[in-house]
C-alpha cells in the first residue's frame, strides 16, 4: 500500500505541469482553439519532445514504457490546463488499441510516428444508435479476397476531423449488438470512400461524423484478430475511462481552488463571502466530492490493467459513477458560488464545468455504469 510517486513519476509530473503552466494560459488556450485543427501543433511537438506521446509505448517503438500511473499524472495535468490536443484520442485510445491488439509489424509501422508527434489517430467506434453500448456496431466489414470492404457511419469520433488515421470498428458477423463478430481496421483518413464532417464540441474540443462507403482495406490494416475485437475494445475503453477520471480530477481540483480563492477575496456586506457558514459548508462539500473522485481515480488507475475483465469492469464502472456525480456537483457549485461571473465565457471556471460535464457523457454516464455495476453484483461479494 503506497500512494507515493517514484522519482521518475515526480519528475514527469513536474515537467508536464511546468510546460503547461508556462504555455497553456487561458488566453493561449483561446488562441489554440482558433488554429485550423482547434489545438496547438507547437504544443503537440513539445509533448513529443517531453516523451508524452510515447508515454505508454515500448522503448523499441520510441516510447518510455509508462503505465496507468504515468497516464494518470499526464491526464490530470491536462485536465487542470483544459488541454485541447488529441492526446486522449491518439495515445490513450488509438495507442491503447495498437499497443494491446496490433501485431508487431503494425506496431513498428505506426507507434514510432505517434511518439514523434507525426501522426494523429482517432478511434471511430460509436454510431448514431449505439449510445453507450460498446458492442453495438452496425458498420460492416465484408470480405473481398484478402481485403475487406467497410460500409457504415461512425459518430462522435473525438478528434476524428484532424486525425491522419482512423481505427474503425466494423462487424464481420453476428447481429448488431453481438459481442462476437467485431473487427478493427486502421484506415487512412483520406482513403477513397471516407468522408468526414468535423465540428466543435461544447467543451472546446473537436469531433467528426465519419462515413465509410465501400472503403477497401488490405490485410495489413487489420488490427488484431478479425471478429474477436470486443474484449480488446472493452479493455482499452476501461483504461481510457481511468484516464478520463484523472482528467476530470484535474479539472475538479482547479474548479475547487478557484472557488475557494473567490470566497476569500470576493466581498459583500463588507466581508469576504467565505465568512458565511452556508458557503463554507458548500466549499467543504465540494472538497469531499473532489477527494472521493480523486480516490476513485486512483482506484481506476490501479484496476486499469486488471486481467480479470469482470473485476476490472466493476471497478472502472464504480469510478465512472463517482466521477460523474462528483463532477456534476463540483461543477454546478463552482458556478453557483462564483455567481454571475461564473456564467461568462470569458471566465475559466465555466469551461472546466463544461469539460467535466462532457466527460460524464463519454463512454457511459454515471447512470449507465451504475446499472452495469448493479447487474454485475456490485463491489462487495458475499461472505
Amino acid at each position: 500500500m503506497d500512494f507515493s510517486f517514484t522519482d521518475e513519476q515526480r519528475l514527469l509530473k513536474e515537467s508536464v505541469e511546468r510546460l503547461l503552466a508556462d504555455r497553456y494560459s487561458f488566453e493561449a488556450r483561446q488562441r489554440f482553439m482558433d488554429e485550423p485543427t482547434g489545438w496547438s501543433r507547437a504544443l503537440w511537438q513539445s509533448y513529443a519532445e517531453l516523451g508524452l506521446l510515447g508515454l505508454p509505448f515500448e522503448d523499441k517503438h520510441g516510447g518510455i514504457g509508462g503505465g496507468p500511473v504515468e497516464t494518470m499524472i499526464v491526464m490530470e495535468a491536462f485536465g487542470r490546463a483544459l488541454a485541447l490536443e488529441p492526446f486522449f484520442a491518439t495515445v490513450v485510445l488509438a495507442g491503447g488499441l495498437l499497443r494491446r491488439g496490433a501485431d508487431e509489424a503494425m506496431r513498428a509501422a505506426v507507434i514510432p510516428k505517434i511518439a514523434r508527434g507525426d501522426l494523429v489517430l482517432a478511434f471511430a467506434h460509436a454510431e448514431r444508435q449505439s449510445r453507450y453500448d460498446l458492442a453495438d456496431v452496425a458498420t460492416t466489414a465484408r470480405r473481398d479476397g484478402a481485403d475487406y470492404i467497410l460500409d457504415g457511419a461512425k459518430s462522435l469520433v473525438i478528434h476524428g476531423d484532424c486525425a491522419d488515421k482512423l481505427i474503425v470498428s466494423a462487424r464481420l458477423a453476428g447481429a448488431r449488438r453481438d459481442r462476437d463478430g467485431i473487427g478493427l481496421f486502421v484506415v487512412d483518413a483520406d482513403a477513397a470512400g471516407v468522408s468526414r464532417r468535423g465540428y466543435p464540441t461544447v467543451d472546446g474540443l473537436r469531433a467528426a461524423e465519419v462515413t465509410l462507403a465501400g472503403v477497401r482495406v488490405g490485410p495489413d490494416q487489420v488490427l488484431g484478430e478479425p471478429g474477436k475485437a470486443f474484449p480488446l475494445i472493452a479493455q482499452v475503453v476501461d483504461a481510457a475511462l481511468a484516464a478520463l477520471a484523472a482528467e476530470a480530477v484535474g479539472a475538479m481540483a482547479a474548479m475547487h481552488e478557484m472557488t475557494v480563492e473567490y470566497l476569500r477575496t470576493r466581498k459583500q456586506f463588507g466581508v469576504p463571502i467565505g465568512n458565511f457558514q452556508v458557503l463554507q459548508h458548500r466549499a467543504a462539500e465540494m472538497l469531499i466530492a473532489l477527494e472521493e473522485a480523486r480516490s476513485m481515480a486512483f482506484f481506476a488507475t490501479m484496476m486499469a490493467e486488471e486481467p480479470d475483465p469482470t473485476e476490472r469492469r466493476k471497478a472502472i464502472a464504480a469510478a465512472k459513477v463517482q466521477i460523474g456525480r462528483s463532477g456534476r456537483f463540483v461543477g454546478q457549485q463552482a458556478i453557483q458560488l462564483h455567481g454571475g461571473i461564473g456564467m461568462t465565457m470569458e471566465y475559466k471556471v465555466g469551461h472546466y464545468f463544461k469539460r467535466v460535464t462532457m466527460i460524464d457523457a463519454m463512454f457511459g454516464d454515471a447512470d449507465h455504469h451504475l446499472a452495469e455495476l448493479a447487474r454485475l453484483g456490485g463491489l462487495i461479494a458475499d461472505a
Partner: protein
Amino acid sequence: MDLRFTPDEIAFRDEVRAFMCAALPAPIRRKMVEARRLEKHDIVTWQRILNAKGWAVPHWPAAWGGIGWSPVKQYIFHEELQQAPAPDPLPFGVNMVGPVIIAFGSEAQKRRYLPRIANLDDWWCQGFSEPGAGSDLASLKTTARRDGDAYIVNGQKTWTTTAQYADWIFCLVRTDPAAKKQQGISFLLIDMKTPGITVRPIQTIDGGREVNEVFFDDVRVPVENRVGEENRGWDYAKFLLGNERTGIARIGTSKARIRRLKEIAALERVGDKPLIDDERFRMKIAAVEVELKALEMTQLRVVAAARDRNEPDPASSILKIKGSEIQQAVSELLLEAIGPYALPQETHDDGDRWNEPPIGPEWAGPLAPHYFNWRKVSIYGGSNEIQKNIIAKAILGL
C-alpha cells in the same frame, strides 16, 4: 504508487481473518450480523478474548500492550474485526481515555488504569456533553472546587453512553470559573461508585437505553485523579476528539451490513422475484457501494499519509462525514428491504428483550430500531456540521 496490499499485509489480513473466524463466539457474531443490541457481557467477553490474544490495544505503546503495527496493519485489523463482524473494543477505554492517560497521565495513573482498560476490567464512560454544552463543548458548566486533597464536583453530564455499566467516568470539569471558556477546564477520572453520583437512563427513539444523564452532587474526587495539569483539560480533550474521528469511518462495519442487506434482499420478494433482482433497488445498493469504495480509498490515503505525521489529519473530518452518511444510507436500505415488516415493534417498552416468536420474517425485527438508532452517527463525535466547519477552517482556510 502501488495500491495493493503487500504480501506481508495480505498474510497479516489472512491471519486476522482466521482468528476472528475461530475466536468470535457464535452468539455474539449472530447479534452483530442481525444488528441486534449487544449486552454488557458480550462486549466484555469479546474484549477479553482479544486481550488474551494481545490484540485489545494494538495502537498503544509497546510498554502498555501495544504491538507497533504500521498504520496500514492497524487499518486492516479494524477492517477485519468490523467485517467479522465483531464488536469493537470499548472505545471509551481503549480509544479515548487510554491514549489520554498514556500521553498526559502520571506513571501511577498508567499502572493503575491501563491494564484494566485493556482487559475491560473497568468499564469507562465519557463525561463531556452537558445539557447546555453539545457542539459548543467548551461552554460546559460542571464545576470542580478544590477542597484540600480533593475536588468537589457538581453538575450534570448527558448523552453518556453505557454509564449504567460504567465503573469509571472521565470528565471535563471547570476548575477555574474566572478563566476564559477553553481555559479553566480540567480532566478528571471519577469512580462511578463515589457517593453523590446518580445515573438516569434516557430512552432513545429506537426504544433503547444506551445513553444516560449523570448527575454529580458534591462528589469528592481525589486530586490524584486529575490527568495532567489543572486547567489544561481542553488540550487533552482536543487530543481525544482528534483520535475519535479517525476510527469513525467504520468501513468494515458498512461492508458487513451491505452483505447482510444483500442476503435479506435475496430473501424478500417483490411480485414473483427476489428484491435483489429489482433493478431500482439493486442500483441503490450499488450506489452505496461506490460511495463506500471511495471512502475506503480515501481512508487508505489518510492511513498511508499517517506514516509521515503524528497529529490527527484534518482529512479525518471527511472520513467522519462520509462514514456516517454511508452507515445511515445502509440502515435506510435495510429498512426499505423489509417493507411493511418494519412496523411490528418487537421490543418491550421497558427495553427488555422480546422472547416471543417474530411477527414478520425473523430478520426484520431489529432493522427499524437500527435505522432510528443510527441517526446518532451524524450527531456524535462532533456533528457533521461541526466537521464541515473544521474542513472550512483547517483545510480550506476560510
